[in-house]
């Protein structure tokens, strides 16, 4: 009896799997192209938008895109990529967890002749990839520093970093480069804010305790800026502190309209996704593609926030 039940359950488990199965092989008439994309995380609207842009282009061609989430886990990312390689993907888009640690996967893809296109955050071994598509992160940092200098030329700034990520390193470099042009501006400290709301809040609170003179913050993205804002609000200091950041997410713009965030250097994730897919097709059609594709950023403040939202809604 028990044996029967357990056999029944085994069959049941397989049934569950069948139920959740992937595309049935018959559904596609001609086996068209298969692309794979691997993100460091999909727990961030930025990457969801980026993926939507990519899908848009690939759908037009009637091809398939397999989207995988590496959950900030380099080992999972490595395994995800080798799955795509061995499945014979035509091209793989990678948003690396670890910009050095991805090397083994890039070598594996190169050996199989599968082009890798890096999106959003760069990799160290650029000779192993077809091209990299990313926002102009250095410029995004510069824009943030300039926006800050306009309202607070004597800013005493703290930076909430995500220092494992090269895109964020570039933003901070751009910010520091521009900030150096304003003699009154001073960077008090740089701390890890993890690039998330949960990470930004406690760090901001600690920094407020350590530096009572803080009057500006540069968190490297919208989520950590929102975390910092909530810490500033609960300390009753938001009025005296100017927050500038990089991203341009819906939540970030909403914070600008509510007067809590001064500016965000907006990125265009959908454009990044589209450009990446378009360059993959160009390459597969035998065309030459540039090594670096830089998608411009745009400063959003209270002045143009409404306009920006409208543009985003109409899906420009």
């Amino acid at each position: 009896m028990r044996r029967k039940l357990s056999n029944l359950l085994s069959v049941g488990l397989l049934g569950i799997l069948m139920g959740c199965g992937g595309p049935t092989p018959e559904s596609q008439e001609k086996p068209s192209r298969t692309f794979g994309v691997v993100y460091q995380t999909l727990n961030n609207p930025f990457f969801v938008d980026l993926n939507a842009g990519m899908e848009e282009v690939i759908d037009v061609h009637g091809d398939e895109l397999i989207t995988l989430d590496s959950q900030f886990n380099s080992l999972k990312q490595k395994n995800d990529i080798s799955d795509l390689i061995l499945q014979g993907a035509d091209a793989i888009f990678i948003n690396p967890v670890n910009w050095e640690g991805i090397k083994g996967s890039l070598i594996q893809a190169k050996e199989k002749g599968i082009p890798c296109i890096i999106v959003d955050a760069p990799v160290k071994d650029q000779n192993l990839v077809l091209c990299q598509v990313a926002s102009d992160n250095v410029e995004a940092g510069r824009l943030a520093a300039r926006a800050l200098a306009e309202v607070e030329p004597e800013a005493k700034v703290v930076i909430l970093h995500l220092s494992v990520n090269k895109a964020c390193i570039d933003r901070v470099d751009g910010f520091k480069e521009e900030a150096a042009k304003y003699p009154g501006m001073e960077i008090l400290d740089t701390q890890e804010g993890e690039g998330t709301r949960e990470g930004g809040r406690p760090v901001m609170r600690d920094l407020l305790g350590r530096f009572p003179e803080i009057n500006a913050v540069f968190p490297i993205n919208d989520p950590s800026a929102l975390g910092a804002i909530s810490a500033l609000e609960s300390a009753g200091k938001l009025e005296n502190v100017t927050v500038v950041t990089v991203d341009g997410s819906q939540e970030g713009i909403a914070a600008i309209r509510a007067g809590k965030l001064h500016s965000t250097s907006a990125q265009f994730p959908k454009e990044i996704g589209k450009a990446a897919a378009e360059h993959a097709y160009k390459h597969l059609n035998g065309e030459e593609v540039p090594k670096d594709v830089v998608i411009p950023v745009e400063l959003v403040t209270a002045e143009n926030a409404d306009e920006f939202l409208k543009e985003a809604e109409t899906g420009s």
Partner: protein
Amino acid sequence: MKTAVRQLGPLLASVVGLLLLFRIWVPNFLASENLIDLTQQISVNAILALGMTLTILIGGIDLSVGAVVALVGTTAVFTMASVDESMSPIPQLTLGILAGLGAAIGIGLFNGLSAAKTRMPPFIITLATMQIARGLALRFNQGRPMNVPDSQTAFLAIGNGRVWEVVPIPVLIMVILFAIGALLLHGTLFGRHLYAIGGNRLAAQLSGVPVVRRETVVYILCAVMAGVAGLIHASQLYSAEPASGEGFELDAIAAVVVGGTSFTGGIGTVHGTLIGAIIIGILDKGLNQAGVHFSLQYVVKGLVILGAVYLDVVRRR
């Protein structure tokens, strides 16, 4: 023998079933290269699960293994990168590995002694050492990844090389460790002692099993397995990543319980764990390659773990 068949039968059947099942959606799923890749993908988790099997078998648990993966990788790579440059690669490598495994033994010794000699639950002890090991790993290079020196081809081969161009070296290491583990657990007095402790600690103690010594050794072995996994992991990433290994302990526990080891201790096998790791590996690979939406993958994996454990409970009743 009979019990072994009873335990392994359904597990092996699920392996075959899953392989054939994914073959439906993924035409080249059973291609030799894809299968070799599968064994390579599971190697880190399987080695962690091997150590975890021992701790769960004696009624304990080790949550620190994921953090130990990071600590050992960073310690080894830091050591290799900071020794005198005139030193040739092999002694450099030896020093790095010794330093890394030394760190693992330190954590394991602490876990083991605390678990064996105090009344603190292993869950809490290793929850604490998980934080400590993670913190120590993040001390290196301000928490940023550290590159393995290019001259260290021997170290890079640990995770990326192949024997006779076929068998990945991490797989070879995994197989050797599992063979040793199986001999130790199923063929020696030491192994029988572990079952006795897991079955009933007090009874084992009263019948003369050196409980404190055995428990301490088990936690050290578990940490050393995590150390070996950490070396492979760092080699595969060409760098040591202080933030890596997060959540690895949970994947290892999943492999152990899917493999039929009882969470309350006293029951379980090494080969069961290997099959458990293989099942989870097939699921990961199959769901990825079949293009199953990543959100559904979590659900399916959760259901499979639940189902496997339920089956196990039913069979034992």
